[in-house]
C-alpha cells in the first residue's frame, strides 16, 4: 500500500507538530507519522512552556505562524514573565500548563489543517534514491512517498531508560524506542552520537503538606504568548517552593554508586545546565541546599512535578530524597524519575535550513539535533517545516540571521559548532541580544511569513495593526515637545518630572522611572497632545511596553543594529558547496573542522571555534581568486564570543571558550 504526500514528518512531538502544521498551512500535503496519535504534543518532562530565552523562542514561533504559543495559551494555568525587573530584551514569558490540555490543544490545532493526515505507525527506514529522499517505509509495510521528510524523533532513537540499576528500552515512560531508524540514518553516512537527559519524580498531590511550602504565584495580570489569543480561559493556580537539605545530600552521596551516571552505566553526556540532583550534589558540594519548584501537572491532575530533582537514582533512594524535603515527609511518589539515553545526529552535518547536507529533501529537527527543551525543538521544527515546504515548491530556502531571532542564533550555533551536550537556549548566546526582545517579534518576523506565501491572514492582520498602532504612538511621542516654561514645569510637578531644557515625550521616556500610562492620563486631564493620548489609549499593555522600550533603548538598539549590519559584509561572502578546504597553509585540524561544518559563508566559517585570522584570510583570498562574490568584505576581523562569558549556576567560568577572535 502506498500513500503519496509532499512532506512526511516523523514524530509528533513539539518539533514534529510545528513542522507538520506549517508545511500543511503552506499548501503541501503532509503526513505526520507517530507511534500513537494521543501522544502528539505530549510534554515528556516539565509541564511548562517558555522561560528565559525559551520564552523568546515561543514568541518567535508565534510570530512566524507556529502553534506552540497558542497551545500554551489554551492550556496555561500560571503565567509569569521572568526577569521582569530587567530590560525587555531578556524578559522571558513562561507558562505552567495543564499537561493533558496542552497535548489536546496541539492535537486540536493540527486537526484544523485540511492538508494534514496523522498516520499511526513506526518508521522502519527512510527511502533514499540517489541523494534524494523518496519517502518512508513503516514497520507494518506501508510506504509513504514524499519529496521531503522531516525527522523529529526526539529522544526515541535507540532510547534506553535508566532507573537505578534497571534499564529498559524506551523513549518515554511506557513508550517504545525507535530501534531501526538510527541504522537508516547511519547508512546515509551520518555520524551519530549519544546524549542523556532525565526527568524528576512525580509526587501524588494528596500526600503533600502544602502548609510547609512557599507559595509561588504567577503574574497578577497574566499575558498570553500568542497574538491570536484574546483571553486566557483557564483558572490560574499557584506553584510552590521547597528545598533540599544536608540530609538530602548525605543520602544521595551515600547512594552515588547506584546512580547510572556515576556507576558507569551511562556514558553519554547530560545537560550541564539542567543537571540531575546527584550532579548538583557532587558538583556544587559547597551549596547547603538547592531549590525545588513544585509544579502542578494540571488543573485536576493528581501529580506534582518536582522541578529541580531530576534523577535516575533507584526508587528507594528517590523515596528518601523526596521525603527529606519540607512538606514531603509523607509524600508518595506516583512515578519515579529516570534518565534516558538516546542517539542524536551531530548537527554540523546539516545546512542552516536543517536539511541534511548532501541529501535532498531530508530535514532533521528537535532533540535529534542535540538540543534540549520543547521550545528549542519547536523552533527547529518550524524552520525545518518551512524549508521542506519551500523545497517542495522549488523556492529559495528560509534562514534566519543571528540578529533576527534566537532561532537563528540556535540553528547557526548547532550547524556551525555542533554540540557535545544537550543544547539549551540562553540570551547570552545572542551577540545582538537587545534586538531580539519579545516585544518586537511581530515587527521583526511576521512580515517574513508574508514573503513566504504562507496564508495566515488573521495573524498578519493583527501584526500589521499592532505595528501601525505602535508606530503612531512612537511618532506622537517624538512630536510632543515640552519647553521648560512655568506652565509646563508646574504641570509636570505632580509626576515628579523635572524639566531643564526643551525635550520631547520620546526623550522623557528614556528617564527611569517613567510610566507612559500615567503620563498620558495626566495629559488627557490637561487636554495636552490629543494625538499622543489617542495613540497611547489604543495600545494594549504589551504594545505600550513595546513603545516605551523602543523609545527608551533607541540608542542601544541603533548601535546593535549597526554592529550587526557591519558583520553582514562577511556573511555575504558565500562559500560554494563544492569548496575543497585542503588548501596549502591550512592546518589539518582546521581543514577537519571546516569539512565537518562546511560553512555556507565566510561569516559562518569565522564562527567555527579555533578559526584563526590567518586561516580566515587564506579562505577569503582563495574565494576571491575563485571569483565568486568577492566584494572586499573586510570589516572587523572579530567579536568577543558570547560563549566565553557563560557560567553555570555555580558561577564558575566556562573556560572551554575564552574570548576568541573570529569574524
Amino acid at each position, binding site marked *: 500500500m502506498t500513500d503519496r504526500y509532499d512532506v512526511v514528518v516523523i514524530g509528533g512531538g513539539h518539533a514534529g507538530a510545528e513542522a507538520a502544521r506549517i508545511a500543511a498551512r503552506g499548501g503541501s500535503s503532509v503526513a505526520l507519522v507517530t507511534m500513537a496519535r494521543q501522544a502528539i504534543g505530549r510534554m515528556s518532562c516539565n509541564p511548562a512552556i517558555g*522561560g*528565559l*530565552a525559551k520564552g523568546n523562542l515561543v514568541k518567535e514561533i508565534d510570530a512566524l505562524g507556529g502553534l506552540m504559543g497558542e497551545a500554551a495559551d489554551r492550556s496555561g494555568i500560571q503565567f509569569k514573565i*521572568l*526577569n521582569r*525587573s*530587567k*530590560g525587555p*530584551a*531578556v524578559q522571558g514569558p513562561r507558562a505552567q500548563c495543564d499537561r493533558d490540555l496542552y497535548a489536546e490543544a496541539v492535537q486540536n490545532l493540527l486537526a484544523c489543517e485540511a492538508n494534514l493526515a496523522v498516520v499511526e505507525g513506526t518508521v522502519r527506514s527512510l527511502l533514499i534514491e540517489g541523494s534524494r529522499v523518496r519517502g518512508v517505509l513503516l514497520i507494518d509495510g506501508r510506504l509513504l512517498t514524499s519529496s521531503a521528510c522531516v525527522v523529529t524523533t526526539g529522544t526515541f532513537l535507540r532510547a534506553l531508560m535508566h532507573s537505578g540499576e534497571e534499564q529498559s528500552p524506551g523513549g518515554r515512560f511506557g513508550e517504545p524506542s525507535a530501534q531501526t531508524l538510527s541504522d537508516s540514518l547511519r547508512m546515509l553516512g551520518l555520524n551519530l552520537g549519544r546524549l542523556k537527559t532525565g526527568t524528576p519524580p512525580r509526587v501524588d498531590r494528596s500526600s503533600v503538606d502544602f502548609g510547609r511550602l512557599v507559595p509561588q504565584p504567577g503574574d497578577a495580570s497574566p499575558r498570553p504568548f500568542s497574538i491570536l489569543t484574546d483571553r486566557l480561559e483557564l483558572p490560574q493556580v499557584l506553584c510552590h517552593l521547597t528545598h533540599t537539605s544536608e540530609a538530602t545530600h548525605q543520602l544521595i552521596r551515600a547512594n552515588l554508586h547506584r546512580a547510572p551516571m556515576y556507576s558507569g552505566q551511562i556514558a553519554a553526556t547530560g545537560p550541564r545546565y539542567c543537571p540531575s540532583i546527584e550532579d548538583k550534589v557532587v558538583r556544587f558540594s559547597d551549596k547547603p541546599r538547592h*531549590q525545588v519548584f513544585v509544579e502542578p501537572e494540571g488543573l485536576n491532575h493528581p501529580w506534582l512535578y518536582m522541578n529541580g530533582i531530576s534523577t535516575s537514582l533507584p526508587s528507594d533512594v528517590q523515596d528518601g530524597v523526596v521525603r527529606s524535603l519540607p512538606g514531603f515527609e509523607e509524600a508518595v511518589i506516583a512515578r519515579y524519575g529516570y534518565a534516558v539515553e538516546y542517539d542524536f545526529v551531530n548537527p554540523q552535518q546539516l545546512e542552516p535550513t536543517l536539511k541534511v547536507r548532501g541529501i535532498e529533501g531530508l530535514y532533521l529537527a528537535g532533540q535529534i539535533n542535540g538540543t534540549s527543551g520543547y521550545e528549542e525543538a519547536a523552533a527547529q521544527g518550524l524552520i525545518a517545516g518551512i524549508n521542506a515546504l519551500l523545497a517542495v515548491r522549488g523556492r529559495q530556502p528560509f534562514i534566519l540571521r543571528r540578529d533576527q531571532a534566537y532561532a537563528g542564533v540556535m540553528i547557526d550555533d548547532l550547524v556551525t559548532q555542533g554540540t557535545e551536550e544537550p543544547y539549551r537556549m*540562553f*540570551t*547570552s548566546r545572542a*551577540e545582538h*541580544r*537587545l534586538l531580539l526582545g519579545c516585544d518586537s517579534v511581530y515587527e521583526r518576523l511576521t512580515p517574513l511569513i508574508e514573503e513566504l506565501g504562507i496564508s495566515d491572514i488573521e495573524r498578519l492582520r493583527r501584526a500589521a495593526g499592532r505595528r501601525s498602532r505602535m508606530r503612531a504612538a512612537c511618532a506622537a511621542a517624538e512630536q510632543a515637545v515640552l519647553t521648560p516654561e512655568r506652565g509646563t514645569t508646574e504641570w509636570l510637578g505632580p509626576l515628579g518630572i523635572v524639566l531643564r531644557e526643551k525635550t520631547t515625550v520620546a526623550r522623557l521616556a528614556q528617564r*527611569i522611572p517613567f510610566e507612559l500610562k500615567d503620563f498620558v492620563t495626566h495629559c488627557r486631564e490637561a487636554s495636552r497632545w490629543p494625538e499622543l493620548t489617542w495613540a497611547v489609549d489604543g495600545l494594549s499593555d504589551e504594545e505600550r511596553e513595546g513603545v516605551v522600550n523602543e523609545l527608551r*533603548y533607541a540608542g*542601544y538598539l541603533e*548601535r*546593535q543594529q549597526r554592529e550587526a549590519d557591519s558583520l553582514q559584509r562577511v556573511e555575504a561572502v558565500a562559500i560554494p558547496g563544492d569548496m575543497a578546504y585542503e*588548501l*596549502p*597553509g*591550512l*592546518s589539518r585540524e582546521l581543514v577537519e573542522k571546516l569539512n565537518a561544518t562546511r560553512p555556507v559563508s565566510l561569516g559562518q566559517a569565522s564562527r567555527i571555534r579555533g578559526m*584563526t*585570522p*590567518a586561516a580566515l*584570510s*587564506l579562505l577569503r*583570498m*582563495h574565494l*576571491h581568486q575563485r571569483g565568486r562574490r568577492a566584494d572586499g568584505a*573586510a*570589516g*572587523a*576581523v*572579530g*567579536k*568577543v564570543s*558570547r560563549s*566565553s*562569558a*557563560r*557560567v*553555570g*549556576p*555555580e*558561577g564558575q*567560568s*566556562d573556560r572551554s571558550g*575564552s*574570548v576568541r*577572535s573570529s*569574524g
Partner: protein
Amino acid sequence: MSSGDPADTIVAAATPPAKSALALVRMDGPRAHSMICGLANREPPAERVATRVTLTDHGETLDDCVMTLYMGPRSFTGNDLVELSLHGSPLVVENVIRAALRCGARMAEPGEFTERAVLNGKIDLIQAEAIADLIDARTSLQARMSLANMAGRLSNEAAGIRERLLFVISRLEAALDFSEEGYDFISREAAGTILDEVIRLEETLAQTYERGRATRRGLKIVLLGAPNSGKSTLLNTLVGSERAIVTEIAGTTRDLISETIEIAGLPVTVTDTAGLRASDNLIEVMGIERARLAASDADLILYLIDTTVGRTVADNDELSRLPHPPLVVYTKGDLSSGPVGELAISALRGAGMPELFCELDRTVRDRFAVRSDSPAVVNERQIAALRDGISALQMARETLETGASEEVILVDLYRGAEAVERLIGRIESEEVFAEIFAKFCIGK
C-alpha cells in the same frame, strides 16, 4: 589587498645587502622545506639542527652554507620555516633568492614573516610592534623598552585586564540567564568595584603613553632666545662638535640646525634657531618664523638669556608666548654672573655645563623616559584602543550606577572587552594589519 597570500612560500634576505661574514636568508611557507632540500639535493634533516649543505641550482654551486629547518607550528611564523646562513656576499644572497624564486617562492612583502607569526597566533600585535621598535632602537633604553614588550609586559597587563572584565561579564550574564536559580552571582557593588579597578588599570596604562611615546620617538629640544644669546655655542657644546657657525654677529643663525644626542636614554634632537627680534631682513624674518614653529612642536624649550644683557622686555614678551614653561638658561656666565638661583653656564669655559646636563637628564628622566618598572604604551594604535576601552567602561560604569539592567551594561562591557582584544591585536581589521606591517623592512 596588501598582505600576501598566506598559502605562498616566501623568501627574503634577513640581513642587509652588504659584504659581511655571514648573510641570513629566510624562507617560509608550505613548500619552504621541499624547495630548499631540492636545492640542497638531500632529504630534510631533523628540525632545529644546524646542518651543513651545499646548495646547487642546475649544476651550478650557489653556496656552501648552514641550513636550519623549523617545523610549523614550532617556528617563529608558525609555518614551516628555513633559515640559511650563507657567506656574506650580496651576490651569493641574490643567487640563492633567485633560485628559490625559480622553485616557485615569491619575494616576501615588508614585514610578512612577522605578520604570519601574528596571524598564526605565535605572537600578538603588541609583540610584533615591539620587534619593529627593537630593530629601530637607537638607544639602549629604547631597546630595553621594546624587549620588555616583546617579552609580553604590556600584553600581560592587557591579559590581566581582560580576565577581570571576563569575570564581571560572565557573572552578569549568569545573573541574566540563571536568575531563577536562586544564586547571587555578583552584587552591583562588587561589579562596580572591579570595573573601577579595571578603569584605573587602563588609565594607569594610558598614562604611560607620554613616556612610551617619548622614549620610542625621542625628544625635541629647541634652543630659543634673543640674537647672540649663545644658542649656537650651546648647541656645539651639547653635541661636542662645531656644528653651528658661531660669530659675534647677532643673527648669524638663520635656518634651523639640528643634531641628535642621547639624554637619559632617549634620543634627543637639539635644534638651534634664529635669534628672536624684530627684523626687516626677509631671510631673518623667515628664520624667526621657523624658530617659533619649531618651539611650538618642541617637547622642551631651552630659553637662553645673555647674562651680560640680562632679561629684557623682549625676553619677557617671548617667554609669555611659549607653549609651555621653558628651562631658562643664563649664558656667558664667564663674563657676568646671572641672577641668584638661576641656571648659569659658560659653554665656552664649561662652567655650569655639568649642572645643565644634570638638569636636562633629570627633566628627561622625570617627564619623558619610560620607567623600567612599568609597562609602556608606545604608539598611537595602542593608546587609541586603550582610550576606546576606557570610554566604553566608563559608560558601563555609569549605566551600572543608574540601576540599568545587566544586558544594557553588558553592551558597553563587551565594547570594553573588544577594545582590549584590539589592543592585543587579536581582532584587528586587515587594513590596520597591512598598515602596521608595511612599516617593517623586508625579511623581518
